[in-house]
C-alpha cells in the first residue's frame, strides 16, 4: 500500500488544503486577465485529502534508510548525525521567514550571522575571502573557476586548461567544462596520489587551475601537496581544493596553508547540512586575498563604525564575476552549518576530524584481511577497499556486498568510485558512529563474504524491492506516473 501511486488515490472532488472565499470584491477573471492567457482547463493535479497525503508520504518515507535509523557509511558523502537543534533553530520565526528583499536594517541579525559564517569559514580554510552564494559544491567549483578566469583576464592572461587527477569527483571536469575550460585528466601514482611527473608534463602557461581533492577520494592525504602547489604556482596557475573531504582535517591543516588558492565547503556534509534526500546543499567558497575582488556578489560586509541598522551590508565586490544565483545563497543550510560551528568550536572541530579518522582507520583495520585497501597504510576519514579478491575467488562483487548489507540493516558504502580502484568499496564511517557499530558492520562484512555467491547476486532479500532493472528504465524512460494509470 505504501507504494501505491499518489495519483491512484485521487478521486474527483476530494480536497486537501482549502482556502477561504475572497474577502475583496471579486471581478470576473476575464476582466483581469486577457482570455488567451487564461487556462482553458484545470491542471491535472490529483485530488486527495490531507490524510491521504500524510499517510502516503509517511509510508513512503519508511522505505528509506537514513542516518536517523541506520549506519550510512556512504563514502565521499560524510553521512554524519544531523543535530536536531539545527532543525529547531533554523525554523525560528525571525530566521525562517525573512524575505530576501527586506530593508537591510531589518536584517541585521541574519546578516550578522552570515558575516560570522564567512569569518569562520575563512579561518577554517586559511583563505580570507568567502562567498556564501554557491548552492552546492558543484556550483562552488564552477564559481571559483570563473573567479579564477576573471582574475586571469584581469591580468591580461587567457588560460585555457584545468587539470585534475583521474580520481576526481565527476563534478570537477563537468564544472570546468561549463566554465569554458579544456579538461586535462592526470594519472594517479601507484600510491593513489597525484602523479607528480604526469602533472609536471601537463603544466604550462595555459594552465589556469589544478583541481585536487585533499584528502583525495581514496581517503589519502596528498603528502606532496605543497610541492604540487608550488609547481602549479610556478607556471602561474592556481590550485583549487575540492573540500568534499574537509571532515578529515578540520583544525589539523588548512587548504590555505598547504597551497590551495581556492576551495569550496560542502556545508551539508562537513557541517551537517543535512543531506535532504539529495539536497539542498550549500557550497560556499573561500579564496585568497587577490581573488576577493572577483567573487560573485553579494557578499556580507561589516562596518563596525556604521550607524545602527547598517553595520552589516550586502556588497558586491569591485570586479565581481556577477551573480551565480538569485538572492544570497542557501541560507537555511548555512544557518544549520553556523549552528554546528558554534556548537563545536575549535576543540570540537578538531575532535571531529580525530574521531572521523580514528573510525575510518579502525574499520579499515578490522576489514583488512577480507577487503584489502590497495592504497595507503593509514587512511584519513575514509578508505577505498577493493572486492577484487572475492570477485576473483568466487564471484562476489562490490555490488553484491553493497546490496547484501542492506539486509543486515546497514546502508551500503559507495561502490565503483573512485574509478581508479577496481571493485571499489568506499567507506566513510564518520565520527558520529560508535565502535560498537563499526564492530557490527565489520562482522557483517566478514559474514557476507562467507555466504553463497548465488544468494548474494540476488541480494537484497529483505527490502521492498530488489535489484531494479536500470537497463529497462533507461531504454524506455517512464518519468511520470499519470500516463500509466
Amino acid at each position, binding site marked *: 500500500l505504501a507504494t501505491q501511486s499518489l495519483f491512484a488515490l485521487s478521486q474527483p472532488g476530494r480536497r486537501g488544503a482549502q482556502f477561504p472565499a475572497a474577502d475583496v470584491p471579486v471581478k470576473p*477573471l476575464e476582466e483581469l486577465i486577457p482570455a488567451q492567457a487564461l487556462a482553458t482547463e484545470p491542471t491535472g493535479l490529483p485530488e486527495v485529502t490531507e490524510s491521504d497525503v500524510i499517510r502516503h508520504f509517511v509510508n*513512503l518515507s519508511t522505505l528509506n534508510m537514513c542516518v536517523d535509523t541506520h549506519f550510512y557509511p556512504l563514502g565521499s558523502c560524510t553521512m554524519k548525525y544531523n543535530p536536531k537543534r539545527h532543525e529547531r533553530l533554523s525554523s525560528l520565526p525571525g530566521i525562517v521567514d525573512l524575505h530576501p528583499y527586506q530593508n537591510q536594517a531589518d536584517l541585521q541579525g541574519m546578516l550578522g550571522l552570515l558575516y560570522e559564517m564567512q569569518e569562520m569559514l575563512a579561518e577554517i580554510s586559511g583563505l580570507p575571502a568567502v562567498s556564501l552564494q554557491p548552492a552546492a559544491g558543484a556550483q562552488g567549483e564552477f564559481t571559483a573557476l570563473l573567479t579564477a578566469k576573471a582574475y586571469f583576464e584581469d591580468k591580461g592572461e587567457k588560460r585555457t586548461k584545468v587539470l585534475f587527477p583521474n580520481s576526481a569527483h565527476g563534478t570537477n571536469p563537468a564544472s570546468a567544462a561549463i566554465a569554458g575550460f579544456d579538461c586535462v585528466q592526470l594519472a594517479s601514482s601507484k600510491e593513489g596520489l597525484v602523479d607528480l611527473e604526469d602533472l609536471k608534463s601537463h603544466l604550462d602557461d595555459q594552465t589556469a587551475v589544478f583541481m585536487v581533492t585533499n584528502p583525495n577520494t581514496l581517503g589519502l592525504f596528498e603528502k606532496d601537496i605543497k610541492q604540487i602547489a608550488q609547481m602549479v604556482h610556478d607556471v602561474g596557475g592556481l590550485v583549487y581544493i575540492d573540500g568534499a573531504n574537509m571532515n578529515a582535517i578540520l583544525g589539523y591543516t588548512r587548504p590555505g596553508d598547504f597551497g590551495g588558492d581556492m576551495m569550496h565547503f560542502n556545508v551539508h556534509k562537513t557541517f551537517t547540512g543535512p543531506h535532504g534526500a539529495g539536497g539542498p546543499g550549500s557550497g560556499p567558497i573561500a579564496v585568497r586575498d587577490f581573488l576577493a575582488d572577483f567573487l560573485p556578489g553579494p557578499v556580507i560586509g561589516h562596518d563596525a563604525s556604521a550607524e545602527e541598522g547598517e553595520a552589516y551590508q550586502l556588497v558586491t565586490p569591485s570586479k565581481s564575476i556577477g551573480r551565480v544565483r538569485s538572492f544570497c545563497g542557501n541560507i537555511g543550510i548555512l544557518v544549520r552549518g553556523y549552528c554546528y560551528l558554534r556548537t563545536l568550536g575549535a576543540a570540537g572541530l578538531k575532535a571531529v576530524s580525530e574521531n572521523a579518522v580514528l573510525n575510518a582507520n579502525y574499520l579499515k583495520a578490522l576489514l583488512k584481511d577480507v577487503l584489502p585497501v590497495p592504497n595507503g597504510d593509514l587512511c584519513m576519514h575514509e578508505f577505498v577497499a577493493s572486492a577484487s579478491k572475492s570477485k576473483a575467488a568466487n564471484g562476489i562483487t562490490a555490488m553484491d556486498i553493497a546490496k547484501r548489507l542492506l539486509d543486515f540493516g546497514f546502508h551500503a558504502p559507495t561502490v565503483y568510485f573512485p574509478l581508479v580502484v577496481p571493485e571499489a568499496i568506499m567507506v566513510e564511517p564518520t565520527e558520529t558512529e560508535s565502535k560498537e557499530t563499526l564492530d557490527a558492520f565489520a562482522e557483517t562484512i566478514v559474514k557476507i563474504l562467507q555466504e553463497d555467491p548465488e544468494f548474494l547476486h540476488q541480494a537484497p532479500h529483505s527490502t521492498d524491492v530488489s535489484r531494479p532493472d536500470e537497463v529497462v528504465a533507461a531504454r524506455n524512460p517512464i518519468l511520470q506516473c499519470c500516463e500509466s494509470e
Partner: protein
Amino acid sequence: MSYLFNTPEQQQQMLQTIGVDSLEALFATIPSDLRLDRPLDLPPALTEMELQKHFSNLASQNVGPGDRVCMLGGGAYDHFVPAAVDEIARRGEFYTAYTPYQAEASQGSLQTFFEFQSLICQLTGMDVSNASLYEGGTCVSEAAFMAMRVTNRHNRVVLLGSLHPEYRQVVETYLKHLNCEVVIVPCKDGSVDPADVDAAMDDQTACLVIQHPNFFGTLEEAAELTEIAHRYGALSVVSYDPISLGILSRPGDYGTDIAIAEGQSLGTPLQFGGPYLGLFSCSEKFVRRMPGRLIGQTVDRNGKRCYVLNLQAREQHIRRDKATSNICSNQGLIAIRAAVYLSLLGKQGIREVAELSCQKAHYAADQLTSVEGIELLFPERPFFKEFAVSCSEGADYLLRKARQAGFDLGPELSRFTFENNPESYQTAVLVAITEQRTREEIDRLVTALKA
C-alpha cells in the same frame, strides 16, 4: 564533546587495533610543516541551551513577516505553507537520507521524486520534469545550455528584458565568458513587444527566454513569443510562476520547449532567499539533453514496480566533462515540500490560491492607486499577483511610510539594473499580494498611506 561516541577508553582500544599509539599518529601523512600549530580562532563552543538563546537574540534583531505584513515580491513570495508540508519534510527518513544511489534503500525518496516530476508535468502541461535544480535563476542558464546542445547553436541567446534582473545576471555570468552573445530585448511599458523580439531573433539563436508573468508581474505574450522563437528554429524557454498556473494557460499548452520556474511558492518558507527550488521541465524529445537528476519507473528482479535514478549516462559522475550539467545534487527536501504542497492543493486548491492572489492583487492595486501620488507604473498591462507602482514622493518615502504602518513592500526597482531603465523606475516599487493578504490589511495600508 558534542556528537562524539568513542570514549577515551574505546579510543585506546581502537588505536591498538589499528596499531598506532595516539590519535596524533593517525595524521602522520600530513607533513608536519603543513600542520596548523595553533587552535582555530573560532568563537567559543556553545551548549544547546546557550545556542538557543543566541538565536533568540539574533532573531530579535530581524524584523519578519510575523512583525510586518509581507507584500514583498520579486521572485520570492509569502504564500501559505500548510502544516502537513512541514510534517513530511521534517521526517528524518527524508532529511537525513541522501541521493538514492542504493535504490532498494531509497524507494521512499525515489517514488516521492518520481511523483514530484509527475506533479510538475501535470501543473505545467510539459512532458518531462527533472527532480529539480538549484533555484529559479540558475534554471535559466541550464535551459540556455540545454537549448544550445539541442539546437547546436552555441553563440547566441535572446532574453526578454522583463526577465528577473538577477536571473539575467546569472545567465550573463554563466554565458558571457563562453563566446556566447546574450541579447536583451528591452522591456517597454511593462512588457516586451513581440515585434522587437522578432527583430532580435535570428537563425543562430539557441533560445528565447521569456518570463511570464514577468519580473514586473505583468503578462507577456508568451504564446506568440513562443511561435516567434520556433519560427527561427530556436527553443522557447518560459520561466513561469507556479502559482499562476492555477488560472493561466500552461507552458505545455502553448508549445513551450523548456519550462522553468522558481518553486519557492510551492510550500517553502522565504528563509532569506534559499534554499529554493528550480523547476525544470521540457518536451519529451529533449529528455536525453536535460540537466539534473531524473527518476524513472522500472521493475525489480521480481517484476515489482519500483523507481531508480534514470538516464545517469547524462550526468557528471559518468560523463564527467561531457555531462549535461555539473549539477550533481537536486533540491531533494525542497522538492519533497513541493510534492506535498501540490498534493494537498490539488487541482482545486491551486486554482483557489491563484484566483485569490489575483483578485486580491487587483483590489490592492485599485486601492493603492486611490492614494494621491501613487500610480500603477504600467497601467495598460494585465498582471497576475504582482504589480509596480510609482510614488510621486519617491520609492523610499513609500517604503518607509508603509514600514511605519507595519507593511513591507518592494523591492524597489532602483535596486536593479535593466537594459531599458527609464526615469520612472527610480520612484517605483513592486507590490506582491498572495492569498494570505486580507482586505483589512490592504485597507489599513491604504489608510496609513493616505494619512
